[in-house]
């Protein structure tokens, strides 16, 4: 398996506040990495650094062999290779579902509109939303919107897909339909970095789990190492917060 994403000595500060401190991570093609950690530990910031929504103070990010962390041009050129879905619903409210999905491939990749639409319809069908293609985002439920957001990112054929707590704002009964889509993407070999608080889902989907606390990677391992044999006290404590029995 070849390495698709490599993060070396990444540090991120907001003024005096160090949010990420010397992060190293290597992700292989087809690998699913789940990132967990207490709220405010820097998970979102980490994902945002990876696709250039935040600038970094130190280190480098190498995507598919290209260093994207140094100049804006290289970043802009490579941005379409990293898809991202956010926690809050971020569809474009003035566009139909179909237009939301086809905008980027048509404008960024300059692809043929007919062709892109065919592909978009196939993807929408796959997530069970073909019948919503002419609706507007406001007419969809939260879970449906997140599935569209996934499709919108997927159609750009990103090398890496970043998912930042995409079910955190959903009503409980809608969580499943979104996670099912993510699980099916993992099965077909998509490379993903997933931030989530759904521990059972993490176990099911991850090849590797990393635990961030205080801006550092504190522990890293396979799901079974991670959940069954946590090494550090900090991880043990963190995992305990997810169970009711003391």
């Amino acid at each position: 398996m070849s390495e698709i994403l490599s993060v070396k000595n990444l540090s991120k500060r907001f003024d005096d506040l160090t949010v990420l401190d010397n992060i190293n991570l290597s992700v292989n093609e087809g690998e699913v990495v789940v990132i967990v950690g207490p709220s405010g530990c820097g998970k979102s910031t980490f994902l945002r650094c990876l696709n250039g929504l935040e600038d970094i103070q130190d280190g480098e990010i190498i995507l598919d062999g290209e260093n994207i962390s140094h100049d804006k041009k290289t970043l802009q050129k490579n941005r379409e290779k990293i898809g991202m879905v956010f926690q809050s619903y971020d569809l474009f409210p003035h566009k139909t579902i179909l237009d939301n999905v086809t905008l980027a491939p048509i404008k960024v990749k300059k692809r043929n509109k007919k062709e892109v639409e065919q592909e978009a319809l196939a993807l929408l069908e796959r997530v069970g939303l073909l019948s919503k293609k002419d609706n507007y985002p406001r007419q969809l439920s939260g879970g449906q919107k997140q599935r569209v957001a996934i499709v919108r990112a997927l159609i750009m054929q990103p090398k890496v897909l970043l998912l930042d707590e995409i079910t955190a704002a959903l009503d409980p009964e809608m969580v499943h339909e979104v996670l099912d889509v993510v699980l099916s993407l993992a099965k077909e070999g998509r490379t993903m970095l997933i931030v989530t608080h759904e521990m059972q889902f993490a176990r099911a989907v991850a090849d590797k789990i990393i635990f961030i606390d205080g801006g550092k990677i504190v522990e890293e391992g396979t799901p079974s190492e991670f959940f069954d044999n946590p090494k550090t006290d900090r991880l043990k404590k963190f995992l305990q917060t997810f169970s009711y029995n003391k």
Partner: protein
Amino acid sequence: MGFDVLFKGTNFIRLLAGLGVALKISLISVAISIPLGIILGMIMTTKNVVIKAVTRLYLEIVRIMPQMVLLFIVFFGATRALGINLSAETASIIVFSFWGTAEMSDLVRGALTGIPVIQYESSFALGLSPLQTYVYVIIPQIVRRMIPLSINLITRMIKTTSLVMMIGIVEVLKVGQQIIEANRKSSPNAAFGVFATVFLLYFLACYPISCLSKYLEKKWEN
């Protein structure tokens, strides 16, 4: 009922011409206010506190002052105090543009700051450049929010032009009064007919615009 006076001589034509004057003043003012308001509204989204305070003050002054007071200040103030010779029409256009720019800038500011950051970010994340993001994602949303509101502002400006007769401009309401005066003996009921007609003329000028605004609002509600 007093409608008969309308058909005497050129009375009805004169009323229409009066409406024309009112529309001309308001449309020129609107044409000035929209671009200036857009520029000022964009300036108002700055983080600079001084600029913010100054623009805020301007907005407050315009809102607090009755338009009639502004008209008097500009028309009489400029001619008497500063010795500048302004025609009544120019003075009204200045006042209405001063007012319209303020209201417009606040609409633009509201529309701009109302677009969530996540809209920019998710567009960037899809690989759209900043320019593409503005063109395909941000500006269409701003326009959708702005158009119904600015149409509403335009109808308010048209209605408020009836004040310009206070500085001697013969617009539709003033023509109406003149017709009533001239026919006081021959048709004492002229007031009703004339004012009903003036009402109808304003209605005909503003109603289609406000319908358009309602239609767009419905169409674009998010």
